[in-house]
């Protein structure tokens, strides 16, 4: 693995001049992705999302690698087609180099409308790395709630108001759903830790078969934060255990980072305009429920890691 300094010197296959928001972490991830793919021909596919619309406004393109987008809900399926054609042409001797395939979608295109297509692609075993950048709402269309939206967040379809505290109930845990597909590699990563993220990208790309990475991706307009705050909010998301960094490799859980100090999730929430209304005392029960869900998820994860160690002992 090259050092960060070395990696930063590599050009990467995602050009500047795209129209992502200032301060958005998604182009950082995308550029990093194209820097860790040594030795393979890389083909990328996109679901309709911020990255897709902002990187490909005809007749311009930020992509220096082959890239395909067809629709919102189907990057799993369309990239299944690309990957399968690669295998077909390889079998017929029309292609010889080693290729790797990457699909990228936001949480709307992955947790919600694209879940079936993603599930199919993973279950069928295509050699495909799926990266979801989870910014917690349909940001591309103007911050509507998705099933990844955290409890209490105000969005344009779950606005906080006299009778509502914002998004009701808990968000979906897609990473666990992907683990249940029994694929070889599932991970959660965060944009604030480039070493961890680049290692995960590399691992996912290098193993054969489907892999899934869920990336916490703070959104400047959607989270109502300043453009210089995305990385910091990603870090706090991890420090407060809202977004644990972990991997599940061949079914074995491994927590990649355990916060040194206990930090309440309000430390993360307080910096975001989408949770501002929750800081009123009237909503303390919502904040408590949020914290309980964070704790429950973390504790489950710790148990799953312990269980993986025990099971590995049996296997040996």
């Amino acid at each position, binding site marked *: 693995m090259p050092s960060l300094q070395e990696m930063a010197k590599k050009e990467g*296959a995602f050009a500047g001049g795209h129209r992502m928001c200032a301060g958005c972490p998604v182009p950082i991830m995308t550029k990093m992705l194209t820097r860790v793919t040594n030795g393979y021909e890389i083909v990328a596919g996109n679901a309709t999302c911020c990255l897709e619309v902002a990187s490909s406004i005809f007749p311009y393109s930020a992509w220096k690698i082959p890239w*395909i987008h067809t629709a919102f809900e189907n990057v799993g399926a369309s990239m299944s087609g*690309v990957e399968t054609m690669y295998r*077909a042409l390889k079998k017929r001797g029309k292609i010889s180099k080693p290729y790797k395939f990457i699909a990228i979608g936001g949480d709307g295109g992955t947790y919600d409308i694209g879940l*079936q297509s993603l599930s*199919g692609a993973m279950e069928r075993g295509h050699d495909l790395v799926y990266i979801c950048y989870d910014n917690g709402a349909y940001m591309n269309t103007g911050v509507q709630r998705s099933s990844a939206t955290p409890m209490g967040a105000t969005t344009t379809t779950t606005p906080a108001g006299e009778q509502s505290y914002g998004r009701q109930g808990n968000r979906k845990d897609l990473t666990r759903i992907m683990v249940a597909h029994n694929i070889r590699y599932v991970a959660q990563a965060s944009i604030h830790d480039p070493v961890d993220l680049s290692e995960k990208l590399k691992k996912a790309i290098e193993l054969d078969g489907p892999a899934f990475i869920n990336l916490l991706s703070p959104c400047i307009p959607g989270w109502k934060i300043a453009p210089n705050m995305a990385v910091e909010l990603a870090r706090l998301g991890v420090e407060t255990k809202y977004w644990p960094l972990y991997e599940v490799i061949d079914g074995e859980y491994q927590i990649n980072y355990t916060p040194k100090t206990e930090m309440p999730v309000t430390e993360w929430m307080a910096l975001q305009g989408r949770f501002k209304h929750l800081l009123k005392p009237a909503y303390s029960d919502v904040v408590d429920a949020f914290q309980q869900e964070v704790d429950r998820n973390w504790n489950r994860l710790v148990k799953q890691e312990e269980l993986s160690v025990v099971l590995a002992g049996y296997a040996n």
Partner: protein
Amino acid sequence: MSKIVAITGAGAMSECMRQINPDVVPAFPITPSTQVIEDFSQFVADGKVDTEMITVESEHSAMSACIGAAAAGGRVMTATSSAGMALMWEMLHIAASMRQPVVMSLINRALSAPINIHADHSDSMGARDAGWIQLYAENNQEAYDNLIMAPKIAEHMDVRLPIMVCMDGFIISHCVQTMQLEDDNKVKEFIGEFESTYPVLDTQHPATWGALDLQDYYMEHKRAQHMAMKNAKDVIEKVSTEFANIFGRKYELFESYRLDDAERVIIAINSVCGEIKEVIDERREAGDKVGLLKIRSFRPFPYEEIAQALEGVKIVTVLDRSESMGAYGPLFVEIRAALFDEPEKPMVYNRIFGLGGRELFMSDIHDIFEENKTYLETGKVEKRFDYLKVRGG
């Protein structure tokens, strides 16, 4: 070696796919197209083809995978029916707009609700504006021949559009007929190698596919698609001539059956045309000047050619096996448009029949010819639009 076989329409499609041996086949089962995919899966399992199949989790994903695979740079085929194609809807347009020459067997079946598994054309007629070439077939032989020609038409550099080869569900897909199954090698040779354009797998020349296309370019791309579809008309004729030279069966954009001196004509699509021909033969024996114009290419639609073929005809009954609620049937609309600029127009009227697989017997077709005879004699079309054989009509 070419041979006569007894085979179902769906079986003919899968045999043709075996002969073509496409690079990738993404597929999802739906009645009545299932046999196409089942047979083909067996061909894969038995090593009779070396196609990579993707057994997707829905038709939406089937067409998405078709687009991805075709854009990657190879030949792609699939099959579906009815609700399956309805679920593909969004992707049908995208396949066409991304100019991917995907080849699909469409076994025509009614759309829900009420749920019904039998033949009508509500699926393909509803997709008539999706940008796909649509070829229709009266019987197994025609469907098989259309499917042999389909890749050559779709992949032609003046066209590069997807194509659906349609036949009536059950009536054709599940009924055994005899037909000429051509020699494997001759079929392969006729179709030739797939030629890719800016394939996604070409990492040396990375292409961006499916870009965001706003007010400043979108309309030019749409017009280019329209021009490609117009080109398809000539290409269909050219490929059909090549096909005839090799295999001996000649197809036009539409078939004119005993049309030369016909005064009263039925225009129809697909399997019902077989019965209509029988009735015409009977009536011709008795000196009745009746004929049939059978549509083969609905998209592109041969307006001028049809107007020319109908010269001298006095009355036309257009049979639609689908409908556009609150409007005339889709075929009728096209036929009227084709005739509008003619100095001497025949009387034209519309009948909806056969929805959800309802039979139309030869006696019913005799009734149609009796009715249009009365209309012609009285000089008046009593009912411009009506249903055939429906309760409470």
